[in-house]
């Protein structure tokens, strides 16, 4: 049971992020929500690769232990983090530009494109 706790945390973070994206009206809060969803996806990958009692997956540092944590999800997570960083930076830049153009961070006022 306690082993499943990380998955619960992943779910909670994902839903929190989704809540922020769905119901918050402030652009920065939406960006935070997107980052939360990214974090939950990364956490899910890390949790999937964890083996109870496993050591770090670096061959020369591991010492004499039978089990290692799976290294592949960690590599995947790193890639996903890098992508997430690029997205966050771009999103914040766009928010800055939006604020400059529209003078507001309220998503309800940034809707010139509709219909």
């Amino acid at each position, binding site marked *: 049971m306690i082993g499943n706790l990380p998955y619960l945390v992943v779910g909670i973070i994902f839903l929190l992020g989704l809540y922020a994206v769905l119901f918050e009206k402030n652009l920065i809060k939406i960006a935070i929500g997107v980052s939360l969803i990214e974090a939950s996806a990364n956490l899910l990958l890390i949790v999937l690769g964890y083996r109870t009692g496993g050591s770090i997956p*670096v*061959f*020369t540092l*591991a010492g004499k232990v039978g089990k290692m944590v799976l290294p592949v999800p960690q590599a995947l997570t790193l890639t996903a983090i890098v992508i997430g960083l690029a997205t966050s930076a771009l999103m*914040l830049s766009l928010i800055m530009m939006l604020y400059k153009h529209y*003078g507001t961070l309220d998503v309800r006022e940034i809707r010139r494109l509709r219909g």
Partner: protein
Amino acid sequence: MYSLSVIVRTICDVFAWFLAVFGVYVIIHGHLTPGGGFQGGAVVATLFAFLLVAYGGKKFIPFYKSNLFSWFETVGLLLFIGTGLVGLGTTFFYNFLAGQGGLFGSTVPIGPNSGVLNSSGTIALMNMAVGVEVIGGLSLILYYMFKGIRLYEESGSEETGHDR
């Protein structure tokens, strides 16, 4: 953004360089320890955030050579893809340096050890390429975002109305 007090600036002067050295360490030992090009590069780029916060934009913007850092970015990327392309004799991204002796070519002894820096072939090279690229890229992001804020502060009153 204005420069902070002399205490902050002094501490920044002292620790910023440790930060840079640590970042470069992480980059160079990317194939031995956790971390690598991106992480090390991000640490080095924090140096610029440090400087920006401590000294403020008026001093930072003339200090920061954005052209130099776009070159960092380009050179890093070219080194990365170049290493991949040289491997084309066998396959794309083939590790042609590993186990050959010479540059990054030592073989690693079997069993736990403290690591051989001169090993892993192109992986170390690529870590360095990515490190250089990330130093350039992340610090440029910081620089441009800061300039964006400045742009708003200077010309902010022009475009505040909605639905023009």
